[in-house]
């Protein structure tokens, strides 16, 4: 069992609420849910849509085919009706012009009859629930949560039932069995990961699609005792986070490409003052403003080479909600251990897509601060940049009696004082760069899916994990012998498995969500391996599993 319901219309027509309610009902009814959204950069109007896929088995991607379309206007219907499955159902209000295969319902009429046009969507919801034979108790529960006002709640419940009364259950649905999953999007998972890791300071400047991290952090700020701050600009943001980290708290900031661009100088500062910090770039298509509400993996190389000058850093691409949670928490440990900036690379697709996942296991998170013991240092004996074999110097935070904690953006000596001599420069560069050796040990291999001795090796990274995983399954099911590598840790770069599988496979295809194949370039640079083919998508819409399959077949044929 595996269905996709499409909800489309203009911004401001309540699509998001409807989609949220329906997704939650499906989750609470025990299905696996995967809800993607497609919205324009505007507050009202335009053509937006949500696509809710649900199934009785694990799912990892949106699909092109639709089983049900609920359209709030004519345009959106026309744009997507081609994707409707043979037995699919297209629904719209009577006001929408007639169309082949379209069922027109008196949604508005019923709502008006009930005395409030705004319950329009609840009529539609009732209809859909009924068609799929879904649980009305769950629906009522959700409506209660959303509509705090008792009369509005009652009205919506009535609308629900009026809608249901218009039809019969007609689509075969097996009862959902997965009762314990959470439904969460990537940004919230990231925020939870940060909080679990003990992040006490999060600041940022609003920027789609990163803003919801700021929103979530703010919402729990008091409860979790986290300083959450909307600041004057992104230049300030990273400098502030570094100040907070220097003073001893775990600190993080985030933005999308344009805001991340404004953090470049401070990124470099993190490098030389060796102050840990976690920064997330939730990518959207560029350049500049680009497509603010769509998705892309276009900042990979920009992020990899962020900041002027040379210093060790780590770059981790988040692959799905679960990964977002655990990797974000891990990022703080690595940042602290090596006293470096760790950059998380996410994207709008991962940020906004809501997926059912096993509840995150907070007991798996450990907090490793790697702070030095102030007691160990007699007065005046502490040197912030002490030269060590690992390149990591003992880190104290201000407050140690008798010892100053001095950080400086100029090249400095062990104590933290400006020293422009050639000898000192070499010593300190070498010290900082030695951290790269330890860091290389931390790198986790890419995820692998599919057949063991592959003829075809697929390589991708980040949020393509889900679609790729499904595509890989489908390809293998169709008789190809395919294995997929999905990179999470991007830098340092992991080469071992890539070399091994490349040696086995006849063909290597890289799949990316950008126009230039940025990861493929990195692969050439680090592994001297060139892809045989590159599948690149850069229209702002995420690869779906079936699209990958189709595109692959085309290049292979």
């Amino acid at each position, binding site marked *: 069992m595996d269905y996709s319901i499409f909800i489309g219309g203009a911004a401001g027509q309540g699509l998001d609420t409807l989609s949220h309610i329906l997704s939650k009902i499906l989750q609470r009814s025990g299905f696996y849910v995967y809800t993607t959204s497609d919205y324009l950069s505007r507050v009202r109007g335009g053509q937006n849509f949500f696509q809710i896929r649900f199934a009785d088995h694990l799912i990892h991607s949106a699909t092109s085919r639709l089983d049900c379309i609920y359209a709030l206007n004519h345009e959106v219907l026309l744009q997507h009706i081609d994707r409707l499955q043979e037995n699919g159902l297209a629904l719209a209000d009577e006001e929408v012009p007639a169309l082949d295969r379209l069922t027109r319902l008196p949604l508005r009429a019923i709502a008006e009859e009930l005395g409030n046009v705004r319950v329009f969507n609840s009529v539609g919801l009732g209809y859909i629930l009924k068609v799929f034979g879904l649980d009305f108790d769950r629906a009522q529960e959700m409506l209660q949560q959303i509509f705090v006002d008792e009369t509005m709640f009652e009205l919506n419940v009535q609308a629900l039932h009026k809608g249901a009364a218009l039809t019969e259950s007609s689509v075969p649905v097996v009862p959902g069995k997965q009762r314990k999953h959470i439904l*969460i999007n990537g940004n919230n998972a990231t925020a939870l990961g940060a909080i679990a890791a003990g992040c006490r300071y999060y600041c940022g400047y609003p920027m789609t699609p990163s803003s919801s991290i700021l929103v979530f952090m703010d919402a729990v700020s008091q409860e979790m005792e986290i300083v959450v701050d909307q600041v*004057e600009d992104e230049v300030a943001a990273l*400098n*502030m986070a570094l100040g907070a980290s220097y*003073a001893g708290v775990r600190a993080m900031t985030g933005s999308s490409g344009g805001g991340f661009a404004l953090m470049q100088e401070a990124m470099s500062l993190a490098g030389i*003052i060796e102050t840990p910090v976690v920064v997330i770039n939730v990518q959207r298509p560029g350049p500049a403003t680009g497509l603010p509400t769509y998705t892309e993996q276009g900042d990979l190389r920009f992020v990899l080479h962020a900041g002027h000058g040379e210093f060790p850093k780590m770059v981790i691409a988040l692959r799905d909600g679960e990964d977002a949670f655990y990797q974000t928490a891990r990022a703080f440990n690595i940042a602290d251990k090596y006293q470096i900036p760790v950059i998380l690379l996410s994207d709008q697709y991962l940020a906004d897509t809501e997926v059912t996942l096993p509840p995150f296991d907070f007991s798996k998170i450990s907090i490793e601060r790697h702070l030095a013991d102030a007691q160990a240092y007699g007065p005046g004996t502490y040197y912030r940049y002490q030269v060590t074999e690992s390149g990591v110097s003992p880190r104290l935070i201000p407050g140690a009696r008798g010892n100053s904690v001095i*950080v400086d953006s100029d090249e400095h000596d062990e104590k933290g004082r*400006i020293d422009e001599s050639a000898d000192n420069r070499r010593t300190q560069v070498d010290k900082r760069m030695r951290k790269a050796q330890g860091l290389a040990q931390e790198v986790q291999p890419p995820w692998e899916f599919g057949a063991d001795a592959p003829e075809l090796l697929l390589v991708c990274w980040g949020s393509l994990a889900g679609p790729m995983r499904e595509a890989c399954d489908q390809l293998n099911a169709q008789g190809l012998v395919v294995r997929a590598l999905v990179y999470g840790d991007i830098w340092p770069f992991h080469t071992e498995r890539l070399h091994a599988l490349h040696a086995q496979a006849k063909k290597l295809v890289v799949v990316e969500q950008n126009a230039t194949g940025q990861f493929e370039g990195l692969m050439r640079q680090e592994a001297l391996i060139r892809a045989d083919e590159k599948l690149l998508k850069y229209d702002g819409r995420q690869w779906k599993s079936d699209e990958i399959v189709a595109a692959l077949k085309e290049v292979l044929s």
Partner: protein
Amino acid sequence: MTVYQLTEETAWCPGCGNPMIRRAVQQALNELGLPPEQVVMVAGIGQAAKMPQYIEMNSFTGLHGRSLPAAIGIKLANTELTVIAQSGDGDNYGEGGNHFISAIRRNIDIAHFVHDNQVYGLTKGQASPTTAQGQITSVQSGGVKAMPFHPLAMALVTGAGFVARGFSGDHEQLVTIMKAALQFKGYALVDILQPCVVWNKINTFQWYKKRVQPLDDNHDTSNWDFAFAAARQWGEVIPTGILYQVEKPTYDEQYGFITGSAPLAARELAPQQAEPLLQRFY
């Protein structure tokens, strides 16, 4: 006096106002008896910003223009620290102009000491935001075209609770102002007139000396209009001293949880404390 020790050598020129300011900071900190482990000095980049190099204390020397954001981050992470942002006029009013406005609006509890030599010293004498219109420099060979920035008036208009003007040549007054700024609960701006003997041949020690005039010790520091008039006075007479001093809620204390018990930086971290947040997603 063994705390806040000064280095013997500095890279400052003989005759520069910076060493005088350094002495004043040191004395203010010592007279207040602030334990050095509780104090952090934050600087940007410039001649003024070399200050932390030359005093033995906790310090964060960051980027040109960015001393305030770093200082704010530090303060929010540990409200028990006394945080001083100390930098030049170019740093604070030029590159860092947006942070300056924002720090005032926040009324964050830090002391802000700006060495105002009306020039970019370290980079060899280009105009700063406070350089007079028409003044000639290496990059303004035709004279500065822009009108000067008025930091004190700006701060007052934007709601600053503590606004003062000092002069590196009036040590005693400067120490007094600094002590008050350090003790003030909220954002405290001290704009310090400072001669740069190499690059600013107009606003020399003598130039300032002739003009500065300490405000009457007993003037009403809660009188905004008086303070505003004094802030805008810039001519044959330049009034110095604490122009305005009125406390209001600080940004930090508005977080509620931030004060009390231990500073944030010292609180225990336990991942499982965050687990209840998962409830929101069932």
